[in-house]
C-alpha cells in the first residue's frame, strides 16, 4: 500500500547503525552524525506516510511481512515480521518523531564530543531495536527487541565510559531490566505452553501460539483464562513491563540513567523506551482484560509509582533527576489508566495511549530544554541556575510551554490526555485512583513550577564569574525545541479516540466538566505555590518548610533509601553471603575433596616406606609370616 515495503522502516536504522558503527565512525564522527540524522529523517517521513495510509485504509491490522526465524517445534515457530495496527502505527510515529528531533538536537549538543560517531551509531541501534519492538507481530520477537533496547540503553547510558558513575549506572540499568526480563521470559514460556495446549483447538495453525493476533483472539483468550495459569503468566509479563518502564519496585535504575548524555535521556528515558512497558500491556490488553486480578495489580502498581515518584520529584536538586521522577510519575499515570480500563469502561485504554502520545512530546521537550540549559550553564544543579529568562528566550518559552502542558493547563496537550485518564478513573468507579491522580497532578505542577522558577526567574546564582553570561544555544538545538513546543500545543486537539479504541468506539468526544475543572484547579494551585516559594531569590520560606518537615524531608530527598537498599541486597546478601561462600565452597570443599584424594594416596605411600627398615632379619620375618598366613589360608579353604 505504501510505495516502499514496510520492513524498510526497520532496515534503515539498522543499515545506518552498521555503516556508522563499523566504517564511517572511524573516519569522521560528523559524517556519521549526518548519515544517522538523514536516515532517521527518512524514517520519520516514512512512518508519517505509513500511519496516514494505514488509518485511511481503515483495516484493523495488517501483517506486512514475516519470515521464519527460530523453529522450536513444528507447531511452535517464531517469525520475525512487521505488523501494522493502530497501536503500532501510533508508536511508530511517536518513536520516529522523537528520534528525529533528538538526532537534530544532538548535532548541536554532541558537536564537540570526540565520540560523536559512536553516539550516533548507538542512537541508530536504539531506534532500530525500538521500532523492531513496536512492530513485533509476536511476543517472542518483542522479547528479542526488548533485550536489544536494553543493550542500546546500556551502551548509551554508559557513553561517557571513563566516568565510573556512568559505568555503574549503565550496569545497574541493564541488570535491573535484565532481572525484569527474567519474569518476562518465564511469562512467555508459560503463555507459549498454554498457547500450545489451546492451539490444538479449533484455531487453525495459521498463527503460532505466541502471535498477538492469536493471543488477543477472544475465544482463544477464554480458553487461556479457563486454564487458570493466565493470571500468573500475565503478572510475570507485567514484571517485564514494570522493569522496562521503571515502575515501583524496579524504578531505581531510571534516576541513575541520567548519567547518559541529555539527548539520550530525552529519547530513551522520556519518550520511547520507558513507555515500552505501557505498550506491552496495551498490546496484550485483550488478554489482561480477561484477568481482572492482573488488571487490579497493574492499576495499583501504576498509582503507587506515580504518587511515590511525584513526592520524590519535589525534593530533587538535579534538574534531570526531577524530570526523571516526573517521567516515572507520568508512566505511573499511563499504567494505572490501563489498569482501570476494562471492556465496560474502555476509555482508560485510549486515555493511557493518548497520554503516552502527548507525554512523549512535552517530556522530550523538557529534557531537551534542560539539555540546552545544562549546555549553557554547565551544571545540573538547579540551585546554581536562575535568571536565565533574559539570556535564553527561546529555551525559556518552549520550556514554559512544556511546563504548562505537563501540569495540564487548558490549551496544552497535557490537559486533554491527563483529563481523559482522570475521567476514565472516575467513570470506571475507581475513586481512590481519581483522588490520588488529582493529588499527583497538583504535585506535578508544583515540582515543574519549582524548577521552572528556580532556573528562569530570580537572579543568576551560578558561581561562574558574572561576565560570562549564559548564551542561547545554536539554532540546531533550538529548532527541535520549537517544533516540539508546537507539537505539545497541537497534539492535544488530535481526535485520538476515533483512531485508537478498545471494545467499542466512542461516539462522542465530550469533556467531563467536573474532572476538567478540578484538574485545572489542582494545576493552578501547584503552579502558584511554586511561584510563591521559588520565584524570588530569598528562599527563607522554603527553609522553613524543610525544617518543618524535619527528618521526613531527608528521607524523601534520598529517594526513600531504595538505592541503598538495593545496593545492600545485591552486595551484602548476594555477593558476600551467597556468591562468596559458593566461591569459597568450590575452592575449598569440592576442590579440596579432589586434592584430598591426592594427598591420601601420598601419605599412604609414605606410611608403607616405614616397613623397609633395611634389616635383613625383618625381611625374613615378614617373609615367613607371609608364608605362614598364605599356607593357613590355603589349607583352611582347601581342607
Amino acid at each position, binding site marked *: 500500500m505504501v510505495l516502499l515495503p514496510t520492513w524498510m522502516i526497520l532496515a534503515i536504522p539498522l543499515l545506518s547503525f552498521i555503516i556508522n558503527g563499523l566504517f564511517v565512525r572511524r573516519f569522521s564522527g560528523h559524517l556519521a552524525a549526518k548519515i544517522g540524522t538523514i536516515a532517521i529523517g527518512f524514517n520519520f517521513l516514512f512512518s508519517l506516510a505509513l500511519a496516514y495510509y494505514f488509518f485511511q485504509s481503515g483495516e484493523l491490522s495488517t501483517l506486512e511481512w514475516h519470515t521464519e526465524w527460530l523453529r522450536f517445534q513444528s507447531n511452535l515457530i517464531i517469525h520475525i515480521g512487521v505488523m501494522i495496527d493502530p497501536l503500532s502505527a501510533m508508536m511508530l510515529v511517536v518513536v520516529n518523531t522523537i528520534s528525529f528531533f533528538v538526532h537534530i538536537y544532538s548535532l548541536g549538543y554532541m558537536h564537540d564530543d570526540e565520540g560523536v560517531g559512536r553516539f550516533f551509531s548507538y542512537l541508530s541501534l536504539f531506534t532500530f531495536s525500538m521500532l523492531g519492538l513496536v512492530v513485533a507481530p509476536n511476543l517472542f520477537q518483542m522479547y528479542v527487541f526488548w533485550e536489544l533496547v536494553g543493550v542500546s540503553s546500556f551502551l548509551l547510558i554508559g557513553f561517557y565510559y571513563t566516568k565510573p558513575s556512568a559505568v555503574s549506572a549503565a550496569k545497574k540499568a541493564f541488570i535491573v531490566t535484565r532481572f525484569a526480563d527474567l519474569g518476562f521470559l518465564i511469562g512467555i514460556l508459560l503463555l507459549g505452553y498454554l498457547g500450545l495446549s489451546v492451539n490444538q483447538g479449533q484455531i487453525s495453525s495459521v498463527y503460532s501460539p505466541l502471535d498477538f493476533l492469536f493471543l488477543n483472539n477472544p475465544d482463544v483468550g477464554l480458553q487461556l483464562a479457563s486454564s487458570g495459569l493466565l493470571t500468573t503468566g500475565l503478572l510475570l509479563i507485567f514484571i517485564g513491563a514494570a522493569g522496562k518502564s521503571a515502575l515501583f519496585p524496579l524504578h531505581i535504575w531510571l534516576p541513575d540513567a541520567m548519567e547518559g548524555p541529555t539527548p539520550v535521556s530525552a529519547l530513551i528515558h522520556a519518550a520511547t523506551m520507558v513507555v515500552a512497558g505501557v505498550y506491552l500491556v496495551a498490546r496484550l490488553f485483550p488478554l489482561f482484560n480477561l484477568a481482572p486480578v492482573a488488571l487490579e495489580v497493574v492499576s495499583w502498581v501504576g498509582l503507587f509509582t506515580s504518587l511515590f515518584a511525584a513526592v520524590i520529584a519535589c525534593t530533587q536538586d538535579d534538574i534531570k533527576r526531577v524530570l526523571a521522577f516526573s517521567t516515572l510519575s507520568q508512566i505511573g499515570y499511563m499504567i494505572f489508566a490501563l489498569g482501570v480500563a476494562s471492556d465496560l469502561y474502555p476509555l482508560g485504554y485510549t486515555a493511557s495511549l493518548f497520554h503516552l502520545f502527548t507525554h512523549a512530546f512535552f517530556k522530550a521537550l523538557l529534557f531537551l530544554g534542560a539539555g540546552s540549559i545544562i549546555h549553557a550553564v554547565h551544571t545540573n544543579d538547579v540551585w546554581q541556575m536562575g535568571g536565565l529568562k533574559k539570556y535564553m528566550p527561546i529555551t525559556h518559552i518552549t520550556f514554559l510551554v512544556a511546563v504548562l502542558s505537563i501540569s495540564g493547563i487548558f490549551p496544552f496537550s497535557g490537559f486533554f490526555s491527563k483529563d481523559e485518564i482522570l475521567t476514565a478513573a472516575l467513570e470506571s468507579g475507581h475513586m481512590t485512583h481519581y483522588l490520588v491522580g488529582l493529588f499527583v497532578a497538583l504535585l506535578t505542577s508544583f515540582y515543574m513550577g519549582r524548577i521552572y522558577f528556580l532556573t528562569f526567574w530570580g537572579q543568576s546564582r551560578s558561581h561562574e564569574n558574572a561576565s560570562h553570561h549564559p548564551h542561547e544555544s545554536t539554532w540546531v538545538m533550538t529548532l527541535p525545541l520549537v517544533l516540539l513546543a508546537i507539537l505539545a500545543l497541537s497534539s492535544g486537539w488530535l481526535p485520538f479516540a476515533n483512531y485508537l479504541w478498545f471494545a467499542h468506539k466512542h461516539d462522542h468526544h465530550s469533556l467531563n466538566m467536573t474532572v476538567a475543572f478540578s484538574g485545572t484547579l489542582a494545576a493552578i494551585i501547584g503552579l502558584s505555590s511554586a511561584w510563591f516559594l521559588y520565584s524570588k531569590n530569598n528562599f527563607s520560606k522554603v527553609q522553613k518548610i524543610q525544617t518543618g518537615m524535619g527528618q521526613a524531608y531527608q528521607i524523601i530527598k534520598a529517594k526513600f533509601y531504595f538505592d541503598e537498599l538495593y545496593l545492600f541486597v545485591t552486595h551484602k546478601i548476594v555477593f558476600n553471603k551467597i556468591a562468596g561462600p559458593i566461591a569459597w565452597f568450590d575452592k575449598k570443599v569440592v576442590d579440596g575433596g579432589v586434592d584430598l584424594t591426592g594427598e591420601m594416596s601420598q601419605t599412604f605411600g609414605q606410611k608403607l616406606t616405614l616397613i623397609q627398615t633395611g634389616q635383613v*632379619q625383618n625381611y*625374613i620375618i615378614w617373609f615367613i609370616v607371609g608364608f605362614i598366613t598364605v599356607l593357613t589360608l590355603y589349607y583352611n579353604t582347601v581342607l
Partner: protein
Amino acid sequence: MNSHLLEWLIMSLFIFCVGIYGLLTRKSGVGLLISLELMINAGALNFISIHRFLYPAQVDAQVFVLFVIAIAAAEVLLALALFMLLIKKQQPVDITQLNHLKH
C-alpha cells in the same frame, strides 16, 4: 620296631625351624651362614627320607641332594667372599649395620 616316615619328616622340620630361629637371632654374617646350612641340610634330609620310604627304587632324590649340596657349597663360598670384602674395609660383619640399601 621300625621307624615311621612321619618321625623323619618331623625331625627334618625341627631342624629347619631351629635353622630359622638361628637365622633370626644371629647378628654376625657367619652365624647366618651356619643356620642357613642347617636349613639346607634339613631340606636334603627330608628329601632323602621321603625318597627312601616311598620310592626306594628311584635314584632321582640322591641326584637332587647332590645338586643341593653343590649349590650350598657355592653359596657359602660367595657369602664368605663378600664377608672378606667387608673385612677388607675394616667393617664388622654385622648384618644389622648393613642397611645401605635403605637410604
